[in-house]
C-alpha cells in the first residue's frame, strides 16, 4: 500500500511534532505541515469574493451571487451603455436532475492506491462524512461530478484510524505536481487527472468555500488530515489538500492510468 520513502517522511513529521511536546501540539499549524507545492487553478466563482490562499476568503455575497454565466456583451455595443448583459435564457425550462454518472473508483498509481468511492453527505455537525472504513473514500455528493465540466469534485478519505491502521489517504501528502490520478465512473468511463498542487491548511483556515465550489474550472480535490495530532481535540490539526485538473476522458475504463 505505501511506498517506503513517503512513509519515512510521515514518520519524521510525527517524531518532530511529538518531540516538541505540548507546546508544539497546542500551536496548531505552526510550520509542521507537509510543504505546499504547485498552485490550484484560480476560482473566480463569486464576484466580489477575494481568493486568499491562506483561507481567509471573504464571504460577502450579500448581493453578488454567481448567475452561472460569464459576463459577455453590453446590451447595445453601438453605444457606451452603462449596462452589461450577463445572461439570457428561456425561463420556461425547469432545472432538471443532473444525469452525469457518479464516481466509483479512485486510482493513484504513485501511491499504489485503488480504492472504492462511496457517496457521502454531511454529518450532524455540518461536516463532510468520511467513510467509517478507512480503506474507502467518499465523493461529497454536493460537489461536482467528475466530467461535469465545471467546479470541484471533492473526494475525502481518512489518513488513518486507530483500530484500522493506515487509511486510503495515508500518503496523500507525498503526491507532487505531475502525478496522475484516475477516477472511474459508474458507467465504466474514466476521467484522468494530473496533480497541480498539494497544500496543507490549519483546520481553522481551510478555504472550504473555494475547495467545494461547483463553479470555476473543472478540478479534482482530494482531502485528508495531516499535521500533528492534537490530543485535546482528538484529531490532526491540518487538512492536506491535493488538487488535480482533468487531462483526458475515456469512454471505457482502462486499468493503466
Amino acid at each position, binding site marked *: 500500500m505505501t511506498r517506503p520513502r513517503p512513509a519515512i517522511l510521515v514518520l519524521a513529521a510525527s517524531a518532530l511534532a511529538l518531540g516538541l511536546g505540548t507546546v508544539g501540539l497546542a500551536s496548531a499549524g505552526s510550520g509542521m505541515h507537509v510543504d505546499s507545492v504547485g498552485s490550484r487553478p484560480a476560482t473566480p466563482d463569486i464576484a*466580489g469574493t477575494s481568493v486568499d490562499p491562506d483561507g481567509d476568503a471573504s464571504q460577502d455575497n450579500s448581493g453578488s451571487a454567481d448567475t452561472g454565466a460569464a459576463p459577455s456583451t453590453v446590451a447595445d455595443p453601438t453605444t457606451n451603455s452603462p449596462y452589461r448583459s450577463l445572461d439570457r435564457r428561456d*425561463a420556461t425550462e425547469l432545472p432538471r436532475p443532473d444525469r452525469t454518472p457518479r464516481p466509483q473508483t479512485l486510482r493513484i498509481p504513485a501511491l499504489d492506491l485503488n480504492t472504492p468511492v462511496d457517496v457521502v453527505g454531511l454529518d450532524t455537525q455540518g461536516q463532510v462524512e468520511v467513510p467509517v472504513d478507512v480503506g474507502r473514500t467518499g465523493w461529497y455528493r454536493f460537489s461536482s461530478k467528475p466530467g461535469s465540466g465545471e467546479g470541484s469534485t471533492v473526494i475525502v478519505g481518512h489518513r488513518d484510524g486507530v483500530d484500522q491502521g*493506515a487509511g486510503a489517504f495515508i500518503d496523500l501528502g507525498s503526491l507532487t505536481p505531475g502525478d496522475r490520478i484516475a477516477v472511474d465512473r459508474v458507467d465504466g468511463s474514466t476521467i484522468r487527472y494530473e496533480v497541480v498542487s498539494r497544500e496543507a491548511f490549519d483546520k481553522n483556515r481551510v478555504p472550504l468555500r473555494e475547495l467545494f465550489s461547483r463553479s470555476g474550472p473543472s478540478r479534482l480535490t482530494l482531502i485528508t488530515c495531516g499535521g500533528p495530532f492534537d490530543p485535546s481535540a482528538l484529531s490532526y490539526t491540518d*487538512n492536506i489538500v491535493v488538487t488535480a485538473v482533468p487531462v483526458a476522458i475515456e469512454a471505457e475504463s482502462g486499468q493503466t492510468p
Partner: protein
Amino acid sequence: MTRRSITRAGIAAAAVALPLGLVALPAQAAEMATVSVLHAIPEGAGADVVDVFANGELLIDNFTPGTLQTVEVPAGDYDLAVFGDGQTPDDADPVLAAEGVTVPGGINATVTANLDADGNPALNVFVNDVSSLAAGEARLIVRHIAAAPAVDVLADGNVLFSDLTNPNEDMAEVPAGDYEASVNLMGTDTTVLGPAGVMLEEGTVTIAYAWGSAAEENLALATQVISGVSDGPEGVPAGGGSTAGLPLWAVALAAVGAAGVVAGGTRLAASRN
C-alpha cells in the same frame, strides 16, 4: 398599459428598495447591482416582442415571453420603460413604465413584466435573498405573478406555501434534492400547475414564477436559478479514525496530558505508520 399598475409597481419598488438603500447608499461610483428581468406577459397580450429601456438607454432588445435576461447595472435610481419592438422613448409611449426604482449597490433583484390578478400588464420588483445557505440546503422562492386567484404551493404532495396571491412571494430553505412541485387553487385539490419534477440544487436559490392567465388557460411555470450561495461544509474530519471510534492512544495522551508521555506517544504513533 394602465396607470394603475404602473403606480403600483412604482410604490412596490420604492418599498423594497428603501430599507436596503439606507444601508447601502451612498453608493460608490463603481458599485454595481445584478438585475434580472423576466418577461412574463403571455403571448397575445400586446407585448409579444418588446425592448426595455432604463433611464432612456436600451437595456434589453427583442425581449419575448418566458425569457429571463440578467444584467449588471450601476447602483442608482432608474426609470424603467417597456416599448413595443423597435419603438423608442423618442417616438412612442411605453407599454409599461415604472419610475424612480432605487437599485442599491450589491443587490440582486428581479423585475417582472407580468399580468396582475385582474389580467392587466404590470411591473413588479423583487429583491432576491442570496444570503448564504448552510451546506446541503437549497432556497426555494415562489412568486405569484399570474392573472389567477390565491394558490397553495405543494412539494411532494405537502403544502409548502398556502394562500399565495399576486404579486407576492413566499420562501423556504429545504434540503437540496429532487421534488415534485404543483400549484393548487387555495384550499382545494384542483391543480392548476404541475405536478412537475424540479431539482433544487445545493447552495442555489431557485425562484419559481407562476405566470400567465387562468382565464386564458395559459398558466405556466418559469424558473430563475442563482447559484454559488453556499459557504460549503463546516470541515473535513478525516484523521484519527472515524467518529464512531476514538483513538485509544490519543485518549490516553489526553487523559495524562503531560510531556511525560511524549516519548511513549512517539513510539505508539510510529508503530501506527
